[in-house]
């Protein structure tokens, strides 16, 4: 599915990659921070 979305040219491909990166980052960066807090016993 992702490969299909990225089948386009130059600037549009960069925009689409940026959107996919943001989708993943929004879900996984806060989760990663939470995991880091758990593992470092910072909580």
């Amino acid at each position, binding site marked *: 599915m992702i490969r299909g979305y990225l089948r386009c040219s130059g600037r549009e491909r960069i925009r689409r990659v940026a*959107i996919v990166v943001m989708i993943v980052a929004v879900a996984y960066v806060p*989760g990663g921070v*939470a995991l*880091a807090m758990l593992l470092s016993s*910072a*909580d």
Partner: protein
Amino acid sequence: MDRDLAVLLLIIAFRGGVPFLVFRWQFAGGLLCILADASDSILQDALGAEPLKGHYHLVDKSFDTYYLLFEAIVAYRWADPLARWAAVGLFALRAGGVVFYELTEIRGTFVVTPNVFENFYLFVAGLRTIDPGYRIPSWRWLVAMVVFVGAPKVLQEYVMHYREAATWHFVKENILMWR
């Protein structure tokens, strides 16, 4: 003007105004809502004021539910019934959890009613920004998407709400090195 009042007005302006952007840009507006959500802690720290002292969690949760409602309205207009009803169901789960928590103050509430809606909304809104005609192909895909965006959120809810960890302070001191 009193500093506390100025910061309070800024917080209200950001958190009250930014959600309207999701009606124009469903994905970018959703991302800006997350920034606006973080802005209250950052503004208070940066400007050395605490207008929400003692009421922070209630105000934060109210503004969170407020902007999620805007996103739920956008999701309710999606043509794809799988995406629409999954989003509405996940929003209802979260909103119900917020109300239940305010009534009972049971800390584990948010672990069983995590804010998976926001991640799911951004996932679908992002794909719809790439392809306006995007539809979730099947129930199996829907389940995979909810698990993909929901698993890190459950962990985050556990740390933030069950263990009551100060996430912003951890990020500030250990990642941004802002002391």
